[in-house]
């Protein structure tokens, strides 16, 4: 009997070995360096599929070395494992799909589901999406995969002003329309949203990313009010894409158990994003700028501003595209990111003078892509940051080297 069981187990094991034979794994390649519309970013990822299984797997990883200093104080050698992200996608039926993105960020001791939504296609112009949704504010929030970018850090305006990656539980619709060289896309979602921490936080400024710490928003809305996110984007396959997006709603907890706690206070965010490429030189431009308006009580501290704006522009110039070191069609790029954020737009009531709290950064970079899914990048950041009183800027500069790849 034992021999029979052992033989059966061995037979299963040999077959199991055959099951994970990599020759059976089919790679669904996506050239992630050539973007489709930004709204397609979550589908425009390389995935692995096994045989006829309806499930695809994928992900990406990001790791960096960094040596930065601020006004003579060096952080020394820093080795960073930024994140490991896993994708699981499934085609449930011909017009029902599921896609998820699970992110591990060891430094934040965080495992978070950033995206997990079911898409139901009724018509190319009308698709229903429900689940955990990445709000389409600007372009970076949806298009944030590390291997797509030539820089080790996410843009300051996208991560520290807008709260990339910002996702919420909710529902909505999206669609696309094609006409010759033109693509028109739209998205409209109702989700849970922000809370009082955007103006009551330890960052001592109006800070939308503070709301990310509230995991309860995936189960219970802070105030019962929906956050509306809408985006319209137009793309011409020759000239590039431009997107206009809006996100807004009541952010604060203004009542509880029927008792009024505060007035209703709104948050409104407007964003403009572009990406284009000069076909003659191959120079690519990707940028995003956002304006934030927050109803902050007049009697609260001006430390917490009621307006913010900021954005970034990435310029990427391919220098070489050849067979390099055994990699076919490897690309060497020269790039530069320009960034600016004003966290507190306004004037002091006491003096009528400008409130500071601003940051500028210039980040030249060299990136090497042995293939479209993998990038090695060397960045030099030069950054200036002024405090609320516009006192002399704090200077930060240094190098970072990193690798990021889809797998």
């Amino acid at each position, binding site marked *: 009997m034992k021999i029979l069981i052992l033989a059966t187990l061995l037979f299963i094991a040999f077959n199991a070995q055959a099951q994970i034979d990599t020759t059976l794994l089919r790679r669904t390649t996506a050239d992630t360096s050539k973007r489709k519309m930004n709204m397609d970013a979550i589908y425009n990822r390389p995935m692995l599929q096994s045989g006829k299984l309806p499930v695809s797997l994928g992900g990406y990883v990001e790791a960096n070395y960094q040596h930065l200093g601020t006004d003579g104080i060096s952080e020394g050698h820093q080795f960073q494992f930024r994140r490991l992200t896993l994708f699981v996608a499934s085609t449930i039926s011909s017009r029902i799909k599921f896609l998820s993105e699970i992110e591990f960020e060891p430094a934040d001791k965080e495992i978070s589901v950033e995206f997990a939504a079911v898409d139901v296609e009724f018509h190319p112009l009308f698709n229903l999406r429900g689940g955990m949704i990445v709000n389409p504010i600007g372009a970076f929030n949806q298009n944030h995969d590390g291997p797509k970018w030539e820089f080790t850090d996410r843009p300051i305006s996208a991560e520290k002003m807008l709260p990339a990656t910002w996702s919420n539980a909710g529902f909505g619709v999206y669609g696309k329309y094609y006409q010759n060289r033109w693509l028109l896309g739209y998205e409209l979602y109702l989700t849970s949203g922000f809370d009082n921490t955007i103006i009551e936080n330890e960052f001592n400024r109006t800070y939308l990313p503070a709301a990310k710490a509230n995991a309860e928003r995936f189960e219970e809305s802070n105030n019962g009010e929906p956050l509306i996110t809408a985006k319209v984007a137009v793309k011409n396959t020759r000239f590039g894409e431009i997107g206009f997006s809006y996100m807004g709603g009541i952010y604060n907890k203004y009542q509880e158990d029927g008792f009024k706690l505060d007035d209703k206070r709104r948050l409104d965010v407007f964003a403009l994003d572009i990406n284009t490429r000069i076909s003659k030189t191959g120079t690519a431009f990707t940028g995003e700028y956002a304006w934030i308006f927050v109803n902050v009580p007049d*009697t609260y501290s001006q430390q917490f501003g009621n307006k913010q704006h900021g954005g970034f522009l990435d310029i990427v110039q391919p220098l070489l595209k050849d067979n390099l070191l055994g990699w076919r069609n490897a690309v060497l790029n020269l790039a530069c990111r320009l960034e600016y954020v004003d966290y507190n737009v306004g004037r*002091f009531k006491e003096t009528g003078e400008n409130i500071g709290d601003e940051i500028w950064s210039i980040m030249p970079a060299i990136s090497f892509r042995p293939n479209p899914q993998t990038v090695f990048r060397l960045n030099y950041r030069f950054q200036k940051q002024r405090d609320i009183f516009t006192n002399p800027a704090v200077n930060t500069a240094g*190098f970072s*080297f990193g690798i990021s790849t889809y797998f």
Partner: protein
Amino acid sequence: MNKNHFAVIGLFLLLITIIISCQKLEPSAPAEDSILDGPVENLTSAQNIQHLAGDVGFNGQVFTAATGLGPVFVATSCGSCHAGDGKGHPFTTLTRFGKNDSLGRNEFDHGPQLQERALPGYAPEKLPVGTSFAKFTPPINSGLGFIELVSEDDILAMAAGNFNNPDGVRGHPNWSLLPTYIKIRPGSENQGNRYITRFGKKASTYNLLHQTILAYNQDMGIASSFDPSDVFTLLDTDPEISDKIVREVVFYLQTLKAPIQRDQHNSDVITGKDLFVQIGCESCHKQTLKTGISPVSALENKEFHPYTDLLVHDMGPGLDDGYTEGSAKTSEWRTAPLWGLGLAPKSQGGQFFLLHDGRARSIDEAIRMHGGEALVIKNRYNALQENEKQKVIKFLNSL
């Protein structure tokens, strides 16, 4: 291997070179005499650790509703009012109001400090109609540990030294009532239940623990075991900050370096300093004081140059706001330490906001606003030729 391979290999070599030379491509430290923050020299490792912990408490801890802020308040953190440990800005200037009786009780329940900001959902305090008030700009923190260690005998000696001052300079220590959590220094002078106090615009706080607890409670609405009162309800509540953090912040303040003078060998600065002394400014703005014994050897028995006598002086009707603390009269203000004066614009947004409430927008204007006991000396300053005035100002800017 073709030229492209060489290009890629060359880039990797460049990368290695860059990493080796990283630190040289990072911003250099500002000159030590151009900044106010940083510890006093020669602290032990253990004291450095304590100083750093206090730095986190002072500059890194931002209070929120969840951690005890308010609900009515003036500022959200210590560092909000003292950028880079420097002077404050009109945005962080606080208002104190009302009259105190002989027992130190303010005529209003909600005093003496106006809680002019409030968490969402709450209303801030309003200044009672018709009451007298004064605005106080936050001071420089640097060198406070040295000032704390000046002996009371020296303070009393400076007061006694003015007895026959021909310019009419007098001055006296402020004698104040102390909260129960203050541990009186052995041999501390007293007038009944009042003691010599030395910190603040009116010299109304006894030591840096007193000053720190007052700031936590009155500026941020943070209750502690030292002062458990809630600024909103006026009732005692649970501590919102640990004794450990309070002690660390006090140690941080005690061990901040003294401001360092710049350009002291410049001929104009030297002439300006001579004129400063000749016209009598040093009657109050005493150049050199000394510390006594201290558990921190880096602070012990040191001479330092704060340009103050820690006494309160009658500054005349122009600076009489009708508000006071301790035994100081409403027109009496503590001689402002002048060290770090030239660095004030680095924490005041590139401008000067001088005197107790920031009303003077230049050093010259601040001098010209002196009155009372300083009137004779101010008139001597006014009588100086323009280039001499500029040298005095250049000297003051070097501090």
